[in-house]
């Protein structure tokens, strides 16, 4: 089982990296892009001792305490069996 954690900047927080990436992509000729936001992705391998609910609970706590900074970031947890 895997817990997948996506950490993204809050919409209100400026993302200079995303802006620079958008600029480069546009230089390559990609059109129709209104915005790019950069985030982080974590794959957490869960061993057999946790069930799905426990894995989700642990990953959520981890995301809150370590993987994200709640002042500037949001997160989402997905569990893949």
């Amino acid at each position, binding site marked *: 089982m895997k817990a997948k954690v996506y950490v993204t900047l809050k919409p*209100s*927080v*400026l*993302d*200079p*990296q995303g802006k*620079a990436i958008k600029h480069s992509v546009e230089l390559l000729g990609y059109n129709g892009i209104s915005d790019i936001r950069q985030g982080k992705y974590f794959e957490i391998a869960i061993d057999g001792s946790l069930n799905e609910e426990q894995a989700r609970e642990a990953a959520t706590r981890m995301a809150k305490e*370590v*993987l994200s*900074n709640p*002042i*500037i970031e949001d997160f989402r947890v997905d569990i893949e069996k």
Partner: protein
Amino acid sequence: MKFGVVVFPGSNCDHDAYHVISKHVGQPVDFIWHRDTDLSSYDAVIIPGGFSYGDYLRAGALARFSPVMNSIRQFATEGKLVLGICNGFQILCEASLLPGALIRNRDLHFICEHVNVRVESTNTPFTHELKRGSILRMPIAHAEGNYVCDDATLAELQREDRIIFRYCTADGRVTDESNPNGARDNIAGICSRERNVMGLMPHPERASEDLLGSSDGRDVFSSLAGTLAAVA
């Protein structure tokens, strides 16, 4: 009085801070390894600049979980003095000892240059020997110095006179052009509600000798020492 300079894996301004305290302030100072937890012999702790844990995850994010940080939290709760410089400021924000966060510079560059900051408050143990409105020239060296906080936090910092340094022009005007990294309200340094914890992005320890181009930062350390001398 005794100073401690915390050393994380990746700290690189620890020796500069140590040098300024021992040589210019003339007080005893120890390095404190980040796994040490006994701070009982210290009156002030400096969290120096550098790249603790390689800035992995977010600048300062992993240093917050080092054993010494629980002791520093306790140390701060007791009203003792904690000064975070650059990465130290980032660590204090990640540890919630100071509000807000430091994100990527507006223009993405790692900026390494001397900047001007205006002293906005002398009502701290770190700035009482400075003059309000005076301009200090100090170097910055960071990629994540762009201070962000929500509206409520900014209003609180302003209301409680907790914005200590702001980026400004050479003649002391706080403008967008003089803001090197996009920091909200040109904030370069803030203090805690109790005023005993201060963080700033510029490096006063690298601006403490004329030989290095500026000695403006030395007053921060002499203020600190003056505070401790008055208490003793």
